[in-house]
């Protein structure tokens, strides 16, 4: 990373010629390596930048001044900020829209385009729109375009086309390359790697804590990194660089540079992302860092000065002009006028002069508080200086050609010719993190900034954002914050230890700011020392409450928000329409809703509104508008990270793949849905009905429950009398919720005195343990419940020949006498694999469900397939099972049940043990109240009346259509112009020779023999109707003889 070592181009600074007319010899603070040129193109024009450049600095060095056109007025926009605070330099980089040129590092071969322009940004075709500014007052679109209403779509399409900036090609691949994600746990997360943040990191790390520092720039040091001013005999940049070396050498500090923080969320979850450098294995990495404490040392940024045409290319903030020169070695302009409101601005003016920019005049809106040393330097450099003056208007068309300045008392204007206006109203802290940790912020009348009034106990603030400017104070405040974080961790840790051994001890009685009792004396002493040192050093400097230049008139071209073209006049207009609080004006006028969000606009908007309130005698303290994360916009690609599709495969996945299974995702599982391209699964179904089939039902939920209160727990959650469960028998039962709705069904087997084995539906496997625990939470019962779904696979061997196949793989007696229907046995198959074998009949045939240890599943599958080969046994998929069970009238939860029906409505009331009140069965009170209630929906079976149907349009091509026509699942049942029910599942049965189905209908239509009108209309003229007759929902083998065979 040579490019980012300060002084990398010291040689170039020593008199050798700069690389382009816009490059400056800026010496030790330079981060650009002029020995490593990088070519790129802008609008097809080849250009050259250097390693260490950002796209913006490289463009600027190549003479580009207009970077984009503004959203509403298509005004030319240039480099205004330098760290992405506003969207003026959002560009399309390598086709990716809305990339911030100010923060994107230049790479060889980049292709850069301007946005929101037709053609070249210099000659944008829509540039004329700004002339109609008068016709577009704040919120104008709410009052336009709807009269007559028929014109609105036209106006709307026009609005849509004009809005938006970047262009996304929906068919392109964006941001290829590795996106990593990492999860950290630290004691102290430091937001901001300036000198305060670094000092905090060192202080905490020296006390053995794990620290992580997030720094958005590629290097550390904050604003000291580009300042050449000396402090205690050393230039600030050198002091910062030495500190960085110490931090990087400290073992338990993890330094993340190029890593903006996107937010600090609940429980101190710090999120951010790292933009990968050349050495990183990823393009970008998403971080989630759980921190016990957070030190916020995010620093300051310029607060814009609102004056006319303050958006002209050539107007920039001091931070931008200064860093362009000092960090990137690019000359911001030849002749400058500087209008500032803080000492850093003055220092920038002095430094720019030293670097060869001719500064015509420096004005400062403050009355007092200037650093006398800086004024002296200005005097020595013979730069005219006025205090209580400020810029009022930037002149020029597509670039600044001059600037008017006014005295705050109303004298003026003085006009200057210049090609650069450096302006700010003052500094404002980067409060984003403080807002997201829910610090209570208040307006500080000394620093004229938002400062934390109340902080969470585990959050500490340090550095220039507190208003400190003295480098010694800044580092000392960092040190203090680090020590306090260490004390907090220490105190919390000790309290936790105490709780663990049963001696709960109230933590932090001494209050958040005091180290408390658990703090070791050395740490307490260090905190005391740091506190007194800080107190002895210069404190926060006075700020200014000024936000606009004098003499701006209505401020029709004075921009408060550059992103959305919100002017001072628009703020006034918003207030005039009743939006007289910052939060309302923000929404109405769109201030701070663009890409820059609150960052540039937030404080100024509040200050303007407060000043207006002053005029009309209302509230006068600027109220902060809500700060919303992400604090820096992360890309969706990076947030999404690497592919996450975690899905489960059954132990028999490969076997089924080999047999041509077509898989579908069902919940967490990948399951074989079909074994042929025929969606009706005719062969699979007939195979089971006439011969034998093999189904992988491994996702079935499987559980063991044991312990003295196991039966109590079963009695609570199952609706039947579970005392009837006995060894060797499967007991079928169901679980309801408190409303009596069916939640789950399965079988329960008593395996020992206090031990049971039970199954649940696949969908419920994941929630069953919690369900049991929740519904027995007050009882203190002693039972263990183990989810063994993944431990056991399940193979369902079904069909009239099932027994004959099974007999070939086991010596155990599986005859009907020895092993009757609903029996359960442990049998040994093949070379001694013991399996649970359950004789169930979900698909309506003789069937054996083998629950096999997962690691033996493939073996057992192989045994069965070999044994079944002589019979022509075929594997079947889920859809075949779905048809088979429907023919039998067995329901699937969610398909034949919903929240309007309870257990008794769907014909399953027979399971409910009505007499039992002692067990407090879940759902029993609701069932008791509603079982006889009239007017409920009921589940019915129906048989479609042969030849009754009529249909129009291509219904069979629609998704979910039935092969062979006829109504499909989801057809509605109608009567007298009302929808009275709907079809849950319907199929044409090859075995029965007619179309059957199950439906949920209102009770008055549910009587056996009643007629149903079935209606389908899938749009585009696809319609069908038919009639059906209500029958018992047991279509196939109603007496169950085949199950018991």
């Amino acid at each position, binding site marked *: 990373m040579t490019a980012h070592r300060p002084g990398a181009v010291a040689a170039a600074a020593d008199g050798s010629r700069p690389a382009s007319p816009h490059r400056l010899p800026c010496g030790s603070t330079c981060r650009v390596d002029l020995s490593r040129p990088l070519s790129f193109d802008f609008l097809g024009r080849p250009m050259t930048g250097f390693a260490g450049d950002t796209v913006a600095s490289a463009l600027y060095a190549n003479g580009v001044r207009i970077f984009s056109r503004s959203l509403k007025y298509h005004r030319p926009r240039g480099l205004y900020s330098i760290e992405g605070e506003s969207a003026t330099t959002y560009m399309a980089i390598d086709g990716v829209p809305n990339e911030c040129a100010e923060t994107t590092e230049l790479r060889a071969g980049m292709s850069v385009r301007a946005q929101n322009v037709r053609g070249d940004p210099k000659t944008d075709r829509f540039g004329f729109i700004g002339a109609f500014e008068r016709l577009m007052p704040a919120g104008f*679109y709410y009052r336009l375009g709807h009269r007559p209403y028929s014109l609105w779509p036209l106006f709307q399409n026009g609005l*849509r086309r004009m809005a938006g900036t970047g262009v996304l090609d929906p068919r392109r691949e964006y941001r290829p390359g590795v996106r990593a994600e990492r999860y950290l746990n630290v004691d102290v997360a430091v937001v901001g790697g300036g000198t305060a943040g670094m000092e905090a990191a060192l202080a905490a790390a020296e006390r053995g804590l794990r620290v992580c520092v997030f720094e958005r720039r590629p290097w550390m040091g904050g604003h000291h990194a580009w300042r050449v001013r000396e402090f205690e005999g050393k230039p600030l940049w050198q002091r910062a660089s030495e500190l960085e070396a110490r931090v990087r050498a400290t073992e338990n500090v993890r330094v993340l540079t190029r890593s903006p923080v996107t937010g600090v969320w609940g429980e101190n979850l710090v999120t951010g992302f790292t933009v990968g450098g050349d050495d990183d294995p990823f393009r970008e990495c998403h971080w989630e860092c759980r921190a016990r404490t957070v030190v916020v040392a995010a620093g300051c940024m310029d607060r814009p000065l609102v004056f006319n045409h303050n958006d002209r290319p050539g107007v920039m903030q001091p931070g931008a002009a200064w860093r362009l020169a000092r960090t990137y070695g690019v000359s911001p302009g030849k002749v400058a006028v500087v209008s500032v409101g803080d000492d850093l601005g003055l220092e920038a003016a002095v430094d720019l002069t030293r670097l060869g920019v001719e500064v015509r005049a420096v004005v400062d809106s403050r009355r007092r508080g200037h650093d006398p040393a800086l004024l002296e330097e200005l005097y020595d450099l013979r730069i005219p200086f006025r205090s209580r003056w400020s810029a009022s208007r930037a002149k020029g068309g597509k670039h600044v050609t001059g600037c008017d300045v006014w005295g705050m008392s109303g004298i003026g204007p003085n006009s200057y010719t210049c090609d650069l206006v450096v302006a700010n109203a003052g500094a404002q802290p980067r409060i984003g993190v403080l807002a997201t940790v829910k610090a209570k912020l208040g307006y500080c009348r000394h620093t004229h900034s938002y400062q934390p009034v109340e902080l969470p106990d585990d959050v500490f603030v340090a550095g220039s954002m507190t208003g400190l400017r003295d480098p010694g104070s800044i580092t000392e405040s960092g040190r203090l914050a680090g020590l306090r974080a260490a004390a907090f961790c220490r105190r919390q840790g000790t309290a936790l230890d105490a709780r663990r051994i049963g001696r709960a001890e109230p933590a932090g009685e001494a209050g958040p700011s005091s180290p408390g009792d658990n703090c070791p004396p050395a740490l307490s002493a260090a905190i005391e020392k740091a506190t007194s040192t800080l107190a002895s050093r210069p404190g926060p400097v006075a700020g200014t409450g000024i936000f606009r230049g004098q003499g701006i008139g209505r401020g029709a071209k004075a921009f408060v928000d550059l992103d959305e073209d919100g002017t001072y006049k628009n703020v006034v207009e918003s207030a005039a329409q009743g939006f007289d609080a910052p939060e309302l004006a923000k929404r109405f006028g769109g201030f701070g809703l663009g890409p820059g969000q609150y960052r540039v606009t937030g404080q100024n908007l509040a200050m303007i509104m407060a000043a207006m309130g002053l005029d009309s005698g209302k509230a006068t303290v600027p109220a902060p508008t809500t700060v919303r994360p992400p604090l820096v916009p992360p*890309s969706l690609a990076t947030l999404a990270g690497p592919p996450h599709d975690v899905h489960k495969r059954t132990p028999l996945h490969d076997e089924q793949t080999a047999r041509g299974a077509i898989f579908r995702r069902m919940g967490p599982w990948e399951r074989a849905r079909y074994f042929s391209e025929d969606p009706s699964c005719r062969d699979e179904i007939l195979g089971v009905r006439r011969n034998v089939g093999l189904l992988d039902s491994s996702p079935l939920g499987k559980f063991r429950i044991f312990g003295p209160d196991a039966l109590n727990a079963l009695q609570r959650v199952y609706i039947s009398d579970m005392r009837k469960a006995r060894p060797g028998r499967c007991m079928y039962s169901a679980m309801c919720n408190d409303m009596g709705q069916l939640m789950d069904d399965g079988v329960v087997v008593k395996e020992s005195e206090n031990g049971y084995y039970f199954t649940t539906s696949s969908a419920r496997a994941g929630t069953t343990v919690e369900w049991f625990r929740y519904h027995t939470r007050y009882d203190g019962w002693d039972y263990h419940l183990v989810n063994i779904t993944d431990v056991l696979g399940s193979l369902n061997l079904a069909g009239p020949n099932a027994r004959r196949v099974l007999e070939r793989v086991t010596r155990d007696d599986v005859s009907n006498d020895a092993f009757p229907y609903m029996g359960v046995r442990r049998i040994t198959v093949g070379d001694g694999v013991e399996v649970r074998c359950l004789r169930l009949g979900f698909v309506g045939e003789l069937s054996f469900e083998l629950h096999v240890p997962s690691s033996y599943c493939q073996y057992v599958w192989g045994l069965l397939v070999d044994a079944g080969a002589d019979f022509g046994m075929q594997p079947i998929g889920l859809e075949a099972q779905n048809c088979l069970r429907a023919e039998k009238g067995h329901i699937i939860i969610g398909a034949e049940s*919903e929240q309007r029906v309870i257990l008794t409505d769907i014909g399953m009331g027979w399971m409910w043990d009505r007499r039992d009140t002692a067990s407090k069965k879940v759902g029993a009170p609701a069932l008791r109240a509603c079982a006889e209630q009239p007017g409920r929906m009921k589940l019915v079976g129906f048989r479609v009346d042969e030849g009754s149907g009529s249909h129009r349009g291509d219904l069979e091509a629609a998704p979910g259509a039935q092969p062979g026509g006829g109504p499909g699942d989801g057809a509605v049942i109608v009567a007298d112009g009302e929808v009275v029910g709907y079809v849950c599942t319907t199929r044409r049965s090859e075995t029965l020779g007619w179309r059957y189905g199950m439906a949920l209908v209102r009770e008055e239509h549910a009587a056996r023999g009643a007629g149903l009108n079935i209606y389908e209309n899938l749009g585009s003229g696809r319609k069908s109707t038919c009639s059906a007759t209500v029958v018992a929902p047991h279509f196939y083998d109603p007496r169950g003889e085949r199950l018991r065979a």
Partner: protein
Amino acid sequence: MSYLRLRRLWKPSPLKRRYEVVIIGGGIHGLATAYYLARHHGIRDVAVLESQYIGFGGSGRNTAIVRANQRTVENVRLYEEGLKLWRVLTDELDYNLMFFNCGVLGLGHSEASVSAFRMLCNTHNFLGVKSELLDPQQCAEMIPGLDISDRLAFPVQAGLYHPPGGVVRHDAVVWGLAKGASAHGVHIHQGCEVQGIDTEGGRVTGVRTTLGPIGCKRLGIMAGGYGGAVAAMLGMELPIHPLTIQAMVTHPLKPFLHHVFSSGAYHVYANQTLKGEIATGAHMDPQVNYTNDATAYYLKHQAEALTELIPALRGVRFMRIWAGLADMTPDMAPIMEGNLGYDGLFLDAGWGYFGFKSGPVAGKYMAEYMATDERPAMLRAFQLKRFLENRYSGETAAAMKYGHWD
């Protein structure tokens, strides 16, 4: 030119000590009720009390999607009328609510959801509400860049397109209704938090607020996510769970997404606003709470879902995330009641995340209810007693879980 004359949208008005009607909640429901009370029923002595600023709650935090493709007959009818009101209100209020009638496309990713879509489609068309079942190819034609391949964890199997739906500018609805209500004499008081409700002899008599007591004959609780909490002031425990629900927007882009789309399986719905941002909403946070806190989880979750469905969205960035409250009932249908426990007490709550699209129509019928004391036929399905009788509305197929079991 009157267009250039800027006037206050709603007048500041003196706080009277008594009103005929007091409405708690300056969101869409409260303002719409006030507007219709004044406009349709001549009851102009109305105050709308808002603890923050109008539109602070769900009204200003939703993703502004409007549609009528509900599951049950009673809901389809209500929302269908709601859809027709946007245009009417735009005219009546002379305020552009910016109804973007772009249609709403739901994506189905399983056989079960295809069946569910077929049921919805049949229901809507039977009731005369346009709805169309699409195959994956047709979905891809409507949503450019939609991945309908098998690469998805849950490949698209069908779409349900609902042409009458779209997007409305949510803030404009709040402000437009405030404008209309104010023009008819309604008083809107912002920064006025209700702290208690006074009753006497089985009648509501007034409210206690941070600005002092205010008397009234009729009281409407239309406090959105806080409805349950306000009702609790009278000792009423409603079957409402407030849950946080989050939404976010990307940087603005030139228009390429011309319809609202949603996917239940991926817990995502999205549309491109008139400003060009992709606005997307997520599922609710599982914990019952009254905060408006956004979480890092949903930022990531939405990115995962959106980039899987439309891979080109890897090229955009999220700009802002926010959260609001959804007042969820167990069956996802609202509670609209009159003279509930006390004479003169009206309740309009439990809208969950359907509160925006229903605002004006709910206000219209609540106003009728409050003015006449007679339950409009349209509201018969939304009574509180359905929970006591265990007769849930079938708005969702599966029983919903909020926070804890049941």
